[in-house]
């Protein structure tokens, strides 16, 4: 029983990170119809930003999160406006390849700048945790879960309350109709991608506090983000959060099976994805579009 509770908690805490990685990916996919293979690279750029500001200026890693968000928003806006917008009407293979190319560029530029050494952010409270009936809950992971949920709530509020959020939702529903009512598609697309990148940046900042990072560490997160979005269901922020938490639980319990382990992380992710796609394509909470 104690084991079960422990796995449940580990799963939910891990799921917070997956939710954080997933919301930006789900937004870009749902609205722009782009499976953003550069998402993992955006995550890791955020992670390096946090690492850099932490080591250079000694800034507390949690305080670097807003910096990550703003910097990645600007980067994402520029990339969408300057590059991806140019092929937005092309068949999906092209957006797929384009984002893969962007990923290749980003990862290898990071490799040129930071080399492939492992980097980690270690603070005075890194090892500390809340002890609860024999189970230790690391503070950083608890905070990461909280921030992930806050970020998702903020994004959902932005989408349903603000003017640009409504414009984004209108575009997701019908691009041409949105243009007819006067929405500047180029700008709104770029804002959408920027928001997705900003979420990825915050997720990356959280990841830098939890694991050692390298320029290639973001790649597994792209596949996992895809699985999370499929698991929850495309089109709503709350569904992605549910998908993230569910995926964390599946991974925690899946890796506890004897003979399994972290080496099968991708195989488990993939197995879950195929199972969901074949049996319930709209996801746990989703509506088919």
């Amino acid at each position: 029983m104690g084991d079960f509770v422990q796995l449940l908690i580990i799963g939910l805490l891990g799921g917070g990170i997956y939710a954080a990685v997933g919301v930006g990916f789900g937004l870009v996919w749902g609205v722009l119809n782009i499976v953003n293979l550069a998402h993992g690279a955006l995550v890791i750029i955020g992670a390096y930003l946090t690492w850099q500001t932490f080591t250079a200026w000694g800034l507390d890693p949690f305080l670097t999160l807003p910096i990550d968000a703003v910097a990645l928003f600007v980067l994402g806006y520029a990339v969408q406006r300057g590059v991806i917008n140019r092929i937005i009407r092309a068949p999906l293979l092209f957006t797929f390849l384009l984002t893969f190319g962007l990923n290749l560029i980003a990862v290898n530029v990071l490799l040129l700048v930071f080399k492939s050494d492992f980097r980690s952010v270690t603070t005075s409270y890194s090892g500390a945790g809340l002890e609860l009936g024999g189970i230790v809950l690391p503070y950083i992971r608890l905070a990461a879960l909280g921030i992930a949920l806050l970020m998702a709530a903020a994004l959902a509020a932005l989408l349903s309350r603000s003017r640009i959020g409504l414009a984004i939702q209108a575009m997701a529903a019908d691009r041409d109709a949105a243009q007819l009512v006067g929405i500047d598609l180029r700008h709104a697309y770029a804002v959408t991608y920027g928001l997705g990148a900003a979420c990825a940046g915050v997720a990356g900042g959280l990841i830098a506090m939890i694991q050692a990072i390298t320029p290639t560490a973001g790649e597994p997160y792209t596949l996992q983000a895809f699985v999370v979005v499929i698991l929850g269901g495309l089109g709503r922020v709350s569904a992605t959060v549910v998908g993230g938490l569910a995926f964390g639980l599946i991974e925690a319990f899946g890796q506890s099976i004897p003979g399994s382990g972290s080496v099968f992380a991708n195989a488990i992710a993939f197995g879950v994805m195929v199972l969901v796609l074949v049996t319930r394509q709209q996801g746990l909470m989703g509506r088919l579009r």
Partner: protein
Amino acid sequence: MTGTAGSRLWNRIFIGLGLAVLAYAVLAPLTSLEAAQSLNVPLLTDKLWFRLATITAMFAVMATAWNIIGGLTGYAAFGNVAFFGIGAYTTGMLIAKAKWPFLLALPLAPLAAAIFAVLIGMPLLRLRGHYFAVASLGVGVAVGELVQNLDYRGEPIFGGASGLFLPIVAAPNRDLYFFYLMLGAAAVSIAITWVVLRSRFGYGLIAIRENEEAAAVIGVNTTVHKVAAFALAAALTGLAGGIFAQWNVFIDQENSFPIAYNVEMILMALLGGTGTVFGPAAGAVLLQLLIQFLSGSLPITLDLPFVPEDAMPVLAQVVLGVLLVLVVIFAPRGVIDFFGGRSRLSIAYLRRSLRETSI
């Protein structure tokens, strides 16, 4: 787009050049080795030349095979490297563990890859668009992971992280032997594409690419067509993997399931023109030469100021990424399009392809 006299001329020049290069590639190894030494002319070939030529032929097979599912059928398969690895490990296991001779083990590589493709193709090919693309990407990643990590009573089944060593095949001229074998595989792939494009089956695939519902309505059994195309692509890719295993003598997850191959083969097909017979192979030659040049494997290397030598492979990847972005944006119908006489490289062409897809 009708070809003008000028573009027909280009067409002829291009085909002539291509044939000359091909003839050289096929015949050069024969003329060079002992003959060149005895005649005291400089060697036309060496180890490096063979390695490069064999790898190029290998990518020609993979790009041509991808074209069958990605270019003709329109299903963006992103995990074809799984078939390459399965082919490599099938021959690898049969030779290293079961002590089969190479030529007996090789035919089982395409067979194993095709069977695997049928098994995963039945659920996966029901998915459309992004779902299929990422699901197949997942297959590529997951199969490699399983092959490296599957244990049976603590013993790795497929050699684990330390990989598999194969006994060296006893051929009089190893390099030549494997070069011709790989070149033969490329020729077979191209011939199969040519046949498929002229068959009822091929028309069915193209109908699926253009409009799957309509294809089903006019009586194309879409499931059978899609799975067959997937299995055909898998078999050819597996064949390349099987040859690779014996050629390279050592296989592991890194060299049999490299995720980068997935995109390289697609980029090659795209560069050369998807849906065509020779395009993917031509794209393979083009891109492979570029990759080898950038990573410094060619005799002619590039000395850039401010760039240390060990950073060159990384820089090569950056260039590959930039190339990918530029091709996708400006020449979605392939670079070979310019030489094939269907359109000419001009500012107007680039602007038109931009306008077609941007908002």
